[in-house]
C-alpha cells in the first residue's frame, strides 16, 4: 500500500467498508499533490464518525464539540490565517447540532474547506435520522419513517451565497480528489457535500445507489449563475444527483475584509501592556 506523509498509526475504528475511508485517502492524496506538509494543515472537526478523521491523519488536529467545528475553524482562522483549514463534519454535526453555525459561517466567507460526510444518518449514535435523511426513510429510531422534509446542504449553501459549493461521491475517489484540490485552491468558503455510504446503518443510500444516480455537471455548466445553480441543486434521487462544482461566487474572503489586520498570523504579533498607554491617556480629563 502506498504510504503518505499524512499517515499516522492510530487504530481506525470505522466499520470496514465505510465511505469515510475513501474520503480520508482522497484528502491525503490531494494534500500531497498540492505539496502541503502536515504542519501547514489544521484539520478541524466536531463529533461523530466523520469527525474522528483528524485522529487518523498526521497533521495538526482540533477535535471539538459536536456541532461546533465551524466556530472552531473560525477561531483558528483568526489566530493564524496561514494554516490550511479543513473541516470534517457529519451531516448531523454540520446541519443539526451545528446548523446555526453553518448558515453564519458561510456569511463570513472565511477561507476554509468544509467537507460534509453526508451519510444521511447518525453513524456514531447508531442510525437515527440526519437532516439529510429522505422523507419516509426508516431508521433505527424513525421506525415508521422520517416525517420531516430533508434538507439539501447544497441548495442551502447556494441560497446563502456560499462562494464555492460542490458535491462529490465517496465511491469515486479520483473525482473526489479533483474537487478537493479545487476547494483547497479556492480562497473563501469551499463546501463539499460528500455522498458517503454508511454500510452499517444506511441500507438505502449505498455505493451502488449513488453510482446509479450521480452525474457530473457538464462542461457547459456555468457555476456562476446563481438561479441556474439553485435549480440544478434541487435534483436528487431518481432524477439524478449532480456532482462537481455546482456554484461559485467571487467575493472577498473573510481575511480580505479585515482591512485593519496587516498580518496573516495574528497570534504571532508581539504585544506589551504598555501598548495601551494611549487609551489610558484618553481617559484623563
Amino acid at each position, binding site marked *: 500500500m502506498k504510504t503518505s506523509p499524512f499517515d499516522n498509526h492510530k487504530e481506525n475504528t470505522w466499520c470496514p467498508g465505510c465511505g469515510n475511508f475513501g474520503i480520508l485517502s482522497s484528502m491525503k492524496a490531494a494534500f500531497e499533490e498540492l505539496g502541503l506538509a502536515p504542519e501547514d494543515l489544521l484539520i478541524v472537526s466536531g463529533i461523530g464518525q466523520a469527525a474522528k478523521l483528524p485522529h487518523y491523519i498526521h497533521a495538526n488536529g*482540533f*477535535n471539538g464539540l459536536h456541532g461546533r467545528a*465551524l466556530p472552531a475553524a473560525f477561531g*483558528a482562522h*483568526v*489566530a493564524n490565517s496561514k*494554516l490550511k483549514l479543513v473541516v470534517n463534519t457529519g451531516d448531523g454535526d454540520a446541519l443539526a447540532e451545528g446548523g446555526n453555525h453553518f*448558515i453564519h459561517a458561510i456569511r463570513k466567507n472565511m477561507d476554509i474547506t468544509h467537507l460534509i460526510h453526508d451519510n444521511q444518518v447518525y453513524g456514531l449514535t447508531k442510525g437515527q435520522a440526519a437532516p439529510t435523511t429522505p422523507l419516509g426513510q426508516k431508521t433505527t429510531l424513525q421506525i415508521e419513517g422520517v416525517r420531516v422534509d430533508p434538507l439539501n446542504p447544497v441548495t442551502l449553501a447556494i441560497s446563502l451565497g456560499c462562494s464555492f459549493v460542490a458535491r462529490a461521491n465517496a465511491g469515486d475517489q479520483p473525482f473526489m480528489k479533483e474537487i478537493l484540490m479545487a476547494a483547497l485552491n479556492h480562497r473563501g468558503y469551499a463546501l463539499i457535500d460528500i455522498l458517503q455510504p454508511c454500510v452499517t446503518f444506511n441500507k438505502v443510500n449505498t455505493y451502488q445507489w449513488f453510482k446509479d444516480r450521480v452525474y457530473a455537471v457538464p462542461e457547459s455548466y456555468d457555476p456562476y449563475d446563481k438561479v441556474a445553480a439553485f435549480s440544478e441543486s434541487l435534483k436528487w434521487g431518481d432524477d439524478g444527483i449532480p456532482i462537481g462544482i455546482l456554484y461559485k461566487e467571487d467575493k472577498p474572503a473573510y481575511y480580505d475584509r479585515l482591512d485593519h489586520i496587516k498580518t496573516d498570523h495574528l*497570534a504571532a504579533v508581539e504585544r506589551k501592556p504598555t501598548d495601551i498607554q494611549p487609551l489610558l491617556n484618553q481617559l484623563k480629563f
Partner: protein
Amino acid sequence: MRINILIGGSAGHGINTIDQFLTRLLTKKGFHFHSYKDYMSRIRGGTNFTHVTLSDQPVHCHDDALDVIVALTSEIIKEHYDRLTENGLIICDADVVLPEPCRHQVTRLNFKEILKETGNTKGYSMVALGAIVKAIGLEESTLNHLVDKRWTEAIIDANTKTARMAYEATHCVLISIPKTNEDHLVMSGNQAVALGALAAGVGFYSAYPMAPSTGVMSYLTQYETRYPLVVEQAEDEIAAINSIISAASNGLRSMTSTSGGGFSLMVEGLGFAAVAEVPVVMLDVQRPGPATGMATRTEQSDLNFVLDASQGEFPRIILSFNSIEDAFYKTFRAFNLSDKYRVPVILLSDQYLADSTSTVREPDLKALKIDLHLVKEVREDYRHHDLRTLVQDRVVPGMTSQIVMNDSHEHDENGSVTESASNRAAMNDRRMSKLNEIIKEIEEPRLIGDPEAKDILICWGSTAGVVAAAVDNLTGQGRSVGALIFGDLYPLPTKTLTKLIERGARLINVEGNYQGQLRQLISRELAYPIHHSILKYDGRQFSPGYILKAYEEMIQK
C-alpha cells in the same frame, strides 16, 4: 466627605450625557467620584437615573442620603425625595410636582424656556449641568470645558450658553468640598475589563450582545485597528465560546463576555476548554435570573452556577471584581493565570459595577508582564497533556513545525482518544491536581476595619465597596467591626478565614442573592456554618445604609 447627586428622568432625556460631562468636569476639577446608572430595559420613556457620589477620596459606591436631586420628571421626586438631606437641594423642570409643603431648597428652572431662548432645543442635559455646577460650588469657568470632539463650534457655543443661563438661574450653593491634586483616569466597569484585556494582549474577542456585558465589546471594537485585534459579534454564545477556544489553542489570547443567559449556552464549551487544557477568559456580568430575569438590574447570583457549570469535573479559576480599578487588574491577571495553568478563568462582574464609572488611579503598565507559556521551538519529547508535570508550556500549530492535537474526549498524553481506565484516572488526577498549584497564587481576601473585631462582615464582588462604606461608617461611630472582602473566589482561599474562625469571630455574610452563595461555598469547603446573613435580591445593589440597618437589626436580636 462625600456629596451625592441623583439626576433622573426618562430614557431620551440625556441622563447619560449629563452623567458623562458632569463626571468629566469633576475629574478635571480634581474630585474623585463614583457614578452608577439605574435604567429600565427599554430604549425610550420609563424612569432612569444616574447617581454621582463625589469626594476627595476614591469612591466605590453610592450613599443613601442625597445632597442634590435633579428631577426632569415627577417620578424622580416621588421615588427619591425621602432620601434628600435636610440641607439638600432640588433642581427641577417647571412641571415637576413637589411634595407640599416642600421643606427643601428648590431651584425650579423652566428647561424649555431656557432652551428656546438659546435656540438649543436638544440641550436638556446642558441646563442640568449648568445648574449642578453652580449647586456644588464650582466656578462658572468650569463650564468652558463642555466640549466634545464630535461637536462643531456652533454646538459648543450653544451648549455653553445654555449651561451658563442655568448656572445663573441657580441660586442655591452647597458648601464646596476639598479637591485632590492627583491625576486620575475615568472608567466604567466594563471599560476596565476591556482595558485589562488589551493590556494582557487580547487578540480575539467574540461575543453575542447581552446586557449588561455589551459595553466590553463596544469599547474594544473601537480599537481593532490599533492593536491589532479582531472583535466579532458571533451568531450566538455557543459560537463565541467555541471560536475563542480554538483561537486560544492557536496561541492567540482570546476572551468572551456575556451575562448569565449567555453563560448558560457556553457551559459545554467551558468543559471543553478545560479538558483540552486550552486557556480562555470568560466574563459573566451578572444580572438577576433565572432565565431572562431583569436585563438591566443587578445581582450576585451566578457564583454557584459558574462554580460547577458543565458536566464532569475539572479545575477552573473564579475571580470577582471588588471595584472598577480591580476589574482592570483582575482581567489582566486572568490571562496570565489561564495560560500558565491551561485552565479556564471565569471573571464575575455585575450590572452595578459594569455600568458604574469612577475615578481610577493610573495603572503602572510597566509593572505588568505578559506570559504566554508557549513552546517556541521543537521539543522532541513534547506531550500535550504531560502526565509527568502539572504546569507546562504548550505547543500551538504554526509556531514551530511541531504538530499538535486538541481534543474534547478523554485522551492520552498526545490528545488521542482512548478508553483506557488507567489513563482516564491519571488524566483526571492531572487536571484536578492543578488546583493545588493554583491555590498558591490565589489571593487571600482583604481584611478591613478592625481585624480583631467580634463581628466580621463577609462579602465578594462589587458589594465590597458598599460594605467598606458601611464599615467606615461604623468605625466613624466608634464601633468595632471588620470585613473580609473576597476577590478571588475559587479555588477558595481559606487561610484568613480559618484564622477568623479559630479566634471565634462572628461571621456575617453580605451578598446580593437569596441563598448566600459564598456562605454556601465556605460551608462546602470548610464545613463551617455562617449563621448570620444580610441578603438582598430585589435587583438593586446594596447601599451602605441598608447594610447598617440590617446589621443593627441583627445585633439587636
